[in-house]
């Protein structure tokens, strides 16, 4: 029970991580809710073995990304489409142009592969290439090469989605 309380408390403190992963991987509210539950459940099942060797946030990212990448969507869903309904709410800026550019960037991210989304999620969280490499289990050089490619692709794709008024 004490362990469950401690876990719930940790998840409450770090639930933004789970939300971010759900937002980046799922394209509608129902799927996001399902994934949120699945990540929480997987984290709970693994929590008993959590020794505190890594930071809880890094550990939770690992669980969340593993779950999101291998998560089975419900059958009825249509193939993933890019829709603004799926994306995290951009901050309300006074400049509409920036808001539109942010939305365009979110749409571009939604079009990435599952692995690229994992890299973007960790990069946006300000993880170093070395930390990203440790979570994903690849080399830091590989992360650097992939990030350069992803950044270039997002730059081009977000231009396509951005239509200035």
């Amino acid at each position: 029970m004490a362990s469950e309380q401690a876990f719930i408390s940790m998840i409450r403190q770090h639930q933004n991580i789970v939300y971010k992963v759900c937002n980046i991987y799922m394209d509608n509210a129902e799927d996001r809710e399902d994934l949120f539950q699945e990540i929480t459940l997987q984290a709970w099942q693994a929590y008993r073995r959590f020794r505190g060797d890594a930071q809880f946030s890094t550990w939770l990212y690992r669980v969340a990304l593993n779950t999101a990448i291998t998560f089975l969507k419900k059958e009825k869903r249509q193939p993933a489409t890019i829709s603004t309904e799926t994306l995290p709410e951009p901050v309300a800026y006074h400049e509409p142009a920036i808001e539109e550019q942010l939305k365009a960037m979110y749409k571009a991210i939604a079009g990435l592969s599952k692995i690229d989304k994992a890299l973007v999620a960790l990069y946006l969280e300000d993880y170093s290439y070395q930390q990203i490499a440790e979570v994903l289990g690849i080399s830091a050089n590989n992360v650097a090469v992939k990030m350069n490619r992803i950044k270039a692709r997002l730059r081009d794709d977000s231009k396509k989605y951005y239509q200035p008024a």
Partner: protein
Amino acid sequence: MELDDLKYHLQQQAPAPGEQRSADDIAALLKPRARSVVDKLKLSLWFELLCSVIFLIVAIVVMCTAESRPTRIYFGVFGITSLLFCLLLGFLLYRVISLSSTPLPVKKNLETIYYIIHHFSRRYNQFTSLLLPLCVALLYGLIYQDMVTNGIEPISLAEQWPLLLQLLGYCIGGALIIYFIRTWYFRKLYFNYLKQLRECIRELATAS
């Protein structure tokens, strides 16, 4: 806009207060339900293991109580086969349970899931492929022994070829039916998923 601009904007943004969940909400999410492929695989393995254990018990009971020697041999052989399958399923189940209790790096995690599903389907194929010829061979022996026990003069081997051909026909026909059902079953359950896993592993392995 660049990805770094988005990162900068997100860093300026205070955590969204709208979507915070209470402790009770989170506690309600801890009730298991199978939605991940690992959980589905775990359920599948538990089910197969349960069926194999039940069959093993039945085989042992029949082997110990049957009066007919061929029947005892028949169930003894299937009991041993079933025991081997139980051990294999137990090993795979152990791997799946270990996987869900230790979060591995993403690439290693994907490779392990891929290995388990691939291994499971291969062993399943081998097991079902072995069962049919074993079953036919034992049936043949059983019929032969039954004839001897009941005092019926067994026909010579040279005269048995129509019967042997018939059995071979059943064996091939049965093997084909089992092969198609098994292939359909695994394609439906795991094929697309394995394809996706392979694609993710390939993507992580290549430096581009």
